[in-house]
């Protein structure tokens, strides 16, 4: 407790210093005439005990990302993060008025909540679900994504019900794995178009890519189908030399993809307000659509 209050005092001190500096130097970004979200928050006396106050006081936002999830986020050979999520994350930090520090935890550690302050936010293609909402706070969606199925080219299956009782591969703790093990019937945030195949057996790897890689390496008995997004499946098919195909053109479910904040961390209320304003502005001024076109070749930012 004592250590905590000392830390808080230090943070408060840092906030004062950051505030003073922020006031004395002109903001280099000309796009925001009214100042960044952090300048506003500090001017309004945001306490450093909240998540927003903590981020603004530090001048840094720690963003959890996946270094190998193109075209959303990818650490390239030059050591830079590129992709739709990465662009969105950088723009969000810019509008907050802070710099980005990337953190690269395992996906399951992000969706499990209880981040313990190791990162402030997830900007990593997380689909809203009721289960996840128990441990993280979701912001307004920044894009929309649907789940599809990929099967071996020589598979006899052409519709979801053909996969009854079959093994379906997915990444650990993904919405695709949730769909396979019961689906999203009755969910208010995920629109389910197809029930999962009855009696399907879920096979998971720590990352989605390992499903594809195991199959292409010759483990063709590993699974009968694999569940992921359209972009992922297109990349996998391109890599497979004709060995894989879409099950069909039907999406099985569609989700709202959002930034996530840790419920167990500092108070998120003011951060939710500030970030939702930024997301709304990025939707309205075409920034998100541009990032989507740049990285995915189509606009996924509208429902």
């Amino acid at each position: 407790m004592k250590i905590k209050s000392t830390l808080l005092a230090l943070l408060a001190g840092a906030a004062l210093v950051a505030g003073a500096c922020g006031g004395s130097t002109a903001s280099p970004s000309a796009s925001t005439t009214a100042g960044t979200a952090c300048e506003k928050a500090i001017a309004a006396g945001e306490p450093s005990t909240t998540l927003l106050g903590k981020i603004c006081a530090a001048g840094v936002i720690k963003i959890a990302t996946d270094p190998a999830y193109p075209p959303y986020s990818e650490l390239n050979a030059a050591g830079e993060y590129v992709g739709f999520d990465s662009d969105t994350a950088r723009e969000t930090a810019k509008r907050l008025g802070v710099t980005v520090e990337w953190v690269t935890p395992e996906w399951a550690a992000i969706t499990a909540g209880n981040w313990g302050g190791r990162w402030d936010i997830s900007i990593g293609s997380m689909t809203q679900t009721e289960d996840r909402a128990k441990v993280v706070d979701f912001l307004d969606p920044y894009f929309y994504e649907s789940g599809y199925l990929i099967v071996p080219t020589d598979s006899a299956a052409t519709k979801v019900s053909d996969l009854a009782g079959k093994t379906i591969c997915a990444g650990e703790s993904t919405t695709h794995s949730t769909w396979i093990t019961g689906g999203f019937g009755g969910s208010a945030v995920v629109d389910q178009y197809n029930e999962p195949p009855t009696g399907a057996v879920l096979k998971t790897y720590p990352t989605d890519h390992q499903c594809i890689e195991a199959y292409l390496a010759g483990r063709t008995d590993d699974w009968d189908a694999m569940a992921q997004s359209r972009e992922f499946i297109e990349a996998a098919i391109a890599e497979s030399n004709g060995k894989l195909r879409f099950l069909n053109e039907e999406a099985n479910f569609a989700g709202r993809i959002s930034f996530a904040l840790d419920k167990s961390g500092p108070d998120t209320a003011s951060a939710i307000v500030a970030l939702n304003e930024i997301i709304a502005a990025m939707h309205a001024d075409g920034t998100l659509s541009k990032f989507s076109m740049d990285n995915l070749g189509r606009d996924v930012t509208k429902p």
Partner: protein
Amino acid sequence: MHEEAEVLAKSVAADEGRRSRNWQTRFRLVWGGIVFLLIAFILISLNVEISFIQTAAPFILQGVGLTLLVSAVSILFATIFAIAGALGRLSRSALLNGIASFYVSFFRGTPLILQLLFWYLALPQVGIVLDPILCAIAALAINYGAYMTEIFRAGIQAVPLGQREAAAALGMAPRTAFLRIVAPQAFRIIVPAIGNDFVAMLKDSALASTVGLQEILWRARNVGAKEFKTLQTFMIAGVVYWVLTIVFTAVQNRIESRLSAGDRNKEAKG
């Protein structure tokens, strides 16, 4: 007669030299052959793309510094823990001996990867958030310290009791005898073990990739995953680790031979 013997001796020596040179040549040929076959097998049957490797390898190599840093700092702390642990294990105090033997039993008795995840996942729940690099160092140093404790204890006990008795006979206090007589001799036994453990640690540091530390294996996994080519990047990582261990094993052999320069036991054995 004398000349004949000399000629014979010379020819025997030459013969031996030739034989050993022959042996060296064959030895190298075996190595070269195996490496050649391995590369041929990989190139022919594993679908390797040279252009992909050319872009992936530099990215993976950027992790070498971090791997070396984590291993070096960890071995330093492991050595400190092991010295403390060994003194505890040799102590007559029930408290110190109890703590040291619990340390050894617990950290040798649980998987290293669990210990790493403990530092990474459990500590934040009580408000202590260690950076991934500190988690990796803590896990490696404490785990290796437990193993090295036993090596250090054995090293100290390997110094013959007579040495201590002789020191006592000369009127040396037990503490002085330990520092001046026992410790330097134990040191000679212990140092090769530290070198061995450093080489082992270079490889075990790959476990830190599970907590997001961007060392060699993490880089190999991530640069490979996005194009579904981790097999190729894992092979690059394998070669990098192998070269590192070859280099550091050579360094360790150097240190070992220098340390044993004045070792009468070894000289006597010839």
